């Protein structure tokens, strides 16, 4: 399954949930914000949102800034 994460193409063996994706990437769901195809996915919906072919996912966090 071909998807995009933070602008880069990735291949997934099978469809997983966004929460499972975060676990796979070693990310804490409380420290990031997720956008799926330009739609913000609330934390409570991460476990039941399945990734599909051609999905574009943005995983965003806070960094230092002025």
């Amino acid at each position, binding site marked *: 399954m071909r998807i995009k*994460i*933070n*602008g880069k193409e990735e291949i997934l063996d099978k469809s997983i949930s966004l929460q499972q994706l975060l676990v796979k*990437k*070693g*990310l*804490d769901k409380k*420290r*990031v*914000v997720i*956008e799926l195809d*330009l739609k*913000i996915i*609330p934390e409570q919906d991460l476990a039941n949102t399945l990734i599909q072919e051609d999905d574009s996912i*943005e*995983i*965003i*966090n*806070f*960094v*230092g*800034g*002025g």
Partner: protein
Amino acid sequence: MADYLFLAGKKITNRLFIGTGKFPNQLMVKKVLEKSRAEVVTVALRRVDLTSKEDNILDYIPKDCHLMINTSGARDASEAVRIARLAKASGCGNWIKLEVIADNKYLLPDNLETLKAAEKLAQEGFAVFPYISPDLSLAKRLVKAGCAAVMPLGSSIGSKRGIKTAELIKIMIQEVPSPIIVDAGIGWPSDASYCMEIGCAAVLVNTAIATAKNPIEMAKAFSLAVQAGRLAYFNSTKSSAEFASASSPLTGFLRTKA
């Protein structure tokens, strides 16, 4: 008598706001914020670097700091609104330092796109702090749109060139019914003090502290300057003269000749 700044429902004592970019490391951010007792702190939002294991900046910001999340990276109003909504979804509050910048050379804000985004975000309930090139008409429109304050630049971001826009900022302080918070270009504590002396509500400083030889000491210098400027603002007669006025008595001179 306590001198609080009321911003978007929050009571603030420390009028030195600090940006968290460009520090040598995240631990220094924490030390500076703790020592300076900063209450308002800016951060940015970016894609997670999936190749790096860097700690989250939030772990280095004291819990009682209020986050002002900037929309840096936004090149137009729609991108700024998108970033603001992501910020809100993070659960870290709704204070947005609205930055809309398409100019990569001077990093000057796009005032028109800023107004568009501010109107939208204010309607959605954000506390909007727009970063602008000083423009009186724009500032009035931003306040009318519901912005919590207006943040005119002193000079280009990161330039440390000081308050090149002083005359326009003074006009805004006189004419705009909103806190005026100078952001960008503050290079020295004297710049910060000057802003407070002329009546700014607060200043936001990042580069001058983060890139100092000793950011902790520099933050202390800025803190003192902001306090000094504020005291001077309250106690100045705000007048200057074309000619001299002697400071010592004009009688009782010791003369050998009349």
